[in-house]
Structure formats: C-alpha cells, structure tokens
C-alpha cells in the first residue's frame, strides 16, 4: 500500500521536475524512491492490509510487488540512456512510474474496478512509450497496433465484467465468489462473462491465439521499452490473471479449464516454433516471450498450492534473464545499427564479458541447470504434473527442446562464427555492473531457489 502511494508521488515529482527544473536530480531521486518503495513493501509482509475492500495487500500482492520493483530498478539502470534526451526527459520518467503504479494495482486488486483501472493505468503510458521514437515509422506502427489491440482487449474484458456484474450483482471478488458458491448467480451469463474476461486477459498476457500483436509491438518499440513490456507488463498481467482465476473463478473451473488447456498448448508450440525462423533477435525474443507465457499458463491451469510460488519464481527468473538479453541486444543494435542474429557473430572475441553474460541469460531462458530458469521450469512442471496435466507437460518439454535450439543459435553465433570487425563494442560501466549483477543473480537463484519459492 505504502509502496503504491510512494510510486504515485514519484510520478508527480517527475512532472514537477519540469517546472522547478531539477531534471538532473531526477534519475537518482527515482532510484532512491524505488529502493524506499521496496523497503516499505517489505514492511507490508503478513499485514494483509486492505483498503476499503478495493485493494488487498496479502502476501501474494506483496511478493509480486517486490518482484516488480526489483525488476523496475534493474530496468532503470539498463535504460539510463532513455532518460538522457533533454526534451522529453520528465515525461519519460512520469510515464514509466505511472505504468509501475498500474502494475502494482494489478497485483493487489480486490475489485473488478481496480483490475480495470490498473490495466489501463499500466497500458496507456505503455502505448505512448512504445511510440516514443516519434520519427521512426516502425515505432509509430508499434504504438498504433498496441493501442488498437489493447483497447480491443479491454472491450472484451469490460463486457465480461459487465456480465459478471449482472449475474452476481457485485464487482467485489469475494462477493462474486460467494454468490457463485451459494448458487444465487445466474450461471449461464456468469460463464459467458468468465470466458470473455479470459479472452481479455489472454490478449494482455499475449497467449496464442491472441498473441499476434506482441511480436510487431515488441519489434517496433524502442529496445528499452520492449524490455519493460516483456518483463514488468508481463509479470503484472500474469499476476492479475492468476489472482482472478485461481480464486474467484476457481468455483467454475469447468467452464474455462479446457479453453486454457488448448491456449497453453497452442502458445507453447506457436511461440517456440515461430521463434526458430526469426532473423531479428528482438522479434525472436518477442516470440520467446510469447512461449514463456505458455509455461506460466501451465501453472495457472494447475491451480494448486504450487501454482502461486511457481509463477512468482518463473516471472522473476524470466524477467531477470530478459533484462540482461535486451540490455545486450540494446548495446549491440546501438553499435552495429542492426538487431539481426548475425550481428552477434564473433562477440566472444570482441567482447568476451558480454558473450558470457548473454550465454548465462540465454541458458536461463532455455531452462538449463544450474541457472534460475531451470528451477523455474522445474516448479512449473511439478505443479502441472501434480494437477495431472501429464499431456500438457509433455508438450511443454518438447516445446522447451525447440526453445533450446533457437537460444543456442545465438550462443553459436557468438562463439563459433567470425565477425568482419574485430573492434570491441563500447559498453558503459553501469551496464557492465548491471550485467555482472544479473549474471550472479541468475546463478544464485539457480543454486538457492528456496529464497524465492518459500515466499508464497
């Protein structure tokens, strides 16, 4: 709760910086603010603080808020260059901070109104940020597609909320659950509402067959914003998805389980297979992010005691790995003006440090021990296995084998292919520190997964 208030005020402070001209100080203020927000968030642990039944800061919300703030901190260090351009500096800060406010609302809502507002507070700044490269047509296109698809998905989500309201007479999650279990809800209208909300949420987490906007948006947007979208936005959307379906809609799981089963299988296969044929690394990572949504759907479908911790760990491991890969793609595409797979050729000779960190991050994304990604997949598969979804686990294992293939394509390009230039690419020292930190974190999370997994 306090973290949410602090993040909102940081956003306002960012806007005030334009008027009172302390723009230069803004970057350290925001970093400090994020650290403070994290500490305040830790104090909310086990308090189960509620705010007029609208928001509920149970441990689930606090854990996901913590992950989001940590990733946001790493992201701010990665994106320092994005906050150097004089003319739009304060806007960029304010938009990102307000998007974070939306993300925190999405993991702690206890009312449909807060879910809707959280999604919109997160999405509207993201539409603007996706188009922040104003003269680049690809960035424009990305912003436009994101806006249309986002608003379209919101329409479905709202229609679902309206039908659920009609069936149960409430927007409150626990009241809805009570109305359903006591049998006072109009069942047919409620089921249609649940399915429409499922479509809306599937759009937001980019699960197939509602994933088609994601690759375009991720490729066209500036790389730092793509990193934000595929980490923080994805984590928040999944936390919101899980919070709704694992509690309120669990009573009617018969209506949505089969749909999610098909969705998960499709997402895994489409995401991984399409990623294989991509030539742009950004687009490949976009499809891989679609595929990772599929793994998380597995735990959502399982809906047992393991699901929450499995998704928390997966979201954290995946986001940290993604920040590192996008940071390196950002460095390389800035230097070489290309984000093709062949721009990674010979990186191990010119920048051995970048190549090592990239390898660790890719191994983690592919799920190879002893990295964080291995345990993330392990917990997801365990939760799905315990729930009896053996067929889906098999599909997921085949999909991760395909995944290994395209992640290794980059590793092979870095280590075994020759590059025309032998000059080392310039890497800023803060990026070096960040990448070193992330590499250590990935290994540590792989060696001691209990730290995160025991939280929920």
């Amino acid at each position, binding site marked *: 709760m306090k973290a949410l208030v602090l993040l909102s005020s940081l956003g306002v402070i960012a806007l005030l910086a334009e008027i009172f001209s302390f723009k230069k100080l803004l970057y350290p203020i925001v970093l400090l603010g994020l650290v403070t927000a994290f500490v305040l968030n830790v104090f909310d642990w086990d308090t189960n603080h509620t705010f007029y039944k609208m928001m509920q800061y149970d441990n689930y919300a606090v854990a996901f808020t913590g992950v989001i703030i940590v990733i946001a901190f790493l992201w701010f260090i990665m994106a320092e260059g994005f906050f150097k351009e004089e003319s739009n500096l304060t806007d960029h800060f304010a938009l990102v901070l307000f998007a974070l406010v939306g993300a925190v609302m999405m993991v702690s809502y206890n009312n449909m109104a807060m879910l809707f507002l959280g999604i919109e507070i997160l999405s509207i700044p993201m539409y603007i940020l996706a188009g922040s490269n104003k003269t680049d047509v690809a960035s424009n296109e990305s912003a436009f597609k994101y806006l249309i698809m986002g608003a379209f998905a919101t329409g479905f989500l709202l229609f679902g909320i309206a039908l659920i*309201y009609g069936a149960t007479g409430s927007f409150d999650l626990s009241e809805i659950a009570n109305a359903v279990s006591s049998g006072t809800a109009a069942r047919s209208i409620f089921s249609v509402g649940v399915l429409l909300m499922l479509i809306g949420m599937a759009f937001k987490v980019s699960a197939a067959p509602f994933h088609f906007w994601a690759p375009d948006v991720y490729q066209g947007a500036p790389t730092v914003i793509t990193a934000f979208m595929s980490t923080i936005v994805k984590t928040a959307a999944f936390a919101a998805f899980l919070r709704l379906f694992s509690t309120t809609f669990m009573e009617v799981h018969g209506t949505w389980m089969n749909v999610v089963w098909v969705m998960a299988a499709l997402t895994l296969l489409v995401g991984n297979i399409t990623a294989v044929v991509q030539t742009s690394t950004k687009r490949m990572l976009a499809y891989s992010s679609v595929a990772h949504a599929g793994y998380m759907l597995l735990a959502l479908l399982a809906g047992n005691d393991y699901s929450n911790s499995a998704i928390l760990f997966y979201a954290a491991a995946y986001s940290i790995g993604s920040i590192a890969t996008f940071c390196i793609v950002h460095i390389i595409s800035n230097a070489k003006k290309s984000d093709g797979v062949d721009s990674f050729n010979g990186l191990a000779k010119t920048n051995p440090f970048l190549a090592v960190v990239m390898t660790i991050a890719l191994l983690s994304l592919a799920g190879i021990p002893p990295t964080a990604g291995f345990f993330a997949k392990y917990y997801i598969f365990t939760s799905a296995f315990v729930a009896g979804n053996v067929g889906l686990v098999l599909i997921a294992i085949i999909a991760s084998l395909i995944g290994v293939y395209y992640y290794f394509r980059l590793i092979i390009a870095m280590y075994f292919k020759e590059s025309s230039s032998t000059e080392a690419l310039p890497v800023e020292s803060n990026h070096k520190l960040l990448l070193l930190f992330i590499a250590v974190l990935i290994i540590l999370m792989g060696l001691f997964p209990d730290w995160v997994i025991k939280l929920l």
Partner: protein
Amino acid sequence: MSAIQTIPIEWYILLSTVLFTIGVAGVLIRRNAIIIFMSIELMLNAVNLLLVAFSSYLSDSKGQVFVFFIMAVAAAEVAVGLAILMMVYRNTKSSDINILNKLKW
C-alpha cells in the same frame, strides 16, 4: 418500477451484444484508423449500456459508478490514440492502416 425496467433485461443484453459485435466487426474489417477508434468506442458504449441496465434491474448503484470509470478511461485512451494517429499521419501522410506494414514475420 423505473422506466428502464418496462423492457425485459434480455432485450438489453441482446442490444448490447449486437452493438458490441458491430464494434468488434468494425475493428476487424475497417481499414481507416478513425473508424477503428469509433468501433472501439462502440464496444465500450455497449458495455456501458449493459452496466446501466443491470444496475437498474439490481437496484444497485455500483454499476453506474463503473460506467463513469469506463467513460473517463475511454476518453484518455482516445486522446492518446488520436495523438498517435497524428504522429503516424505526420510520417506517412495517411490514416489508412494498410500503410502500417513495416513489421511482419
């Protein structure tokens, strides 16, 4: 019994579903960006209509409060949307979305 309740609730559900479907079809079929925005507004207004009807039938004001949230957010979304469209127009001199085909595969 208020005026809104002289018509059975099923008709309101049917009307909003039809309006919503027209909106969805508009987004999927039309190629002009402005018309697409209008279709999205139609989808959201179908939801508003449904919420108000339910709210009246349930004698509960929460649904109408939600409508205000939707209106405010829809206004913000369209403001951003038109700004993005202006940006696209400055670069491409067109509001036809078929021009936006740089990103595929």
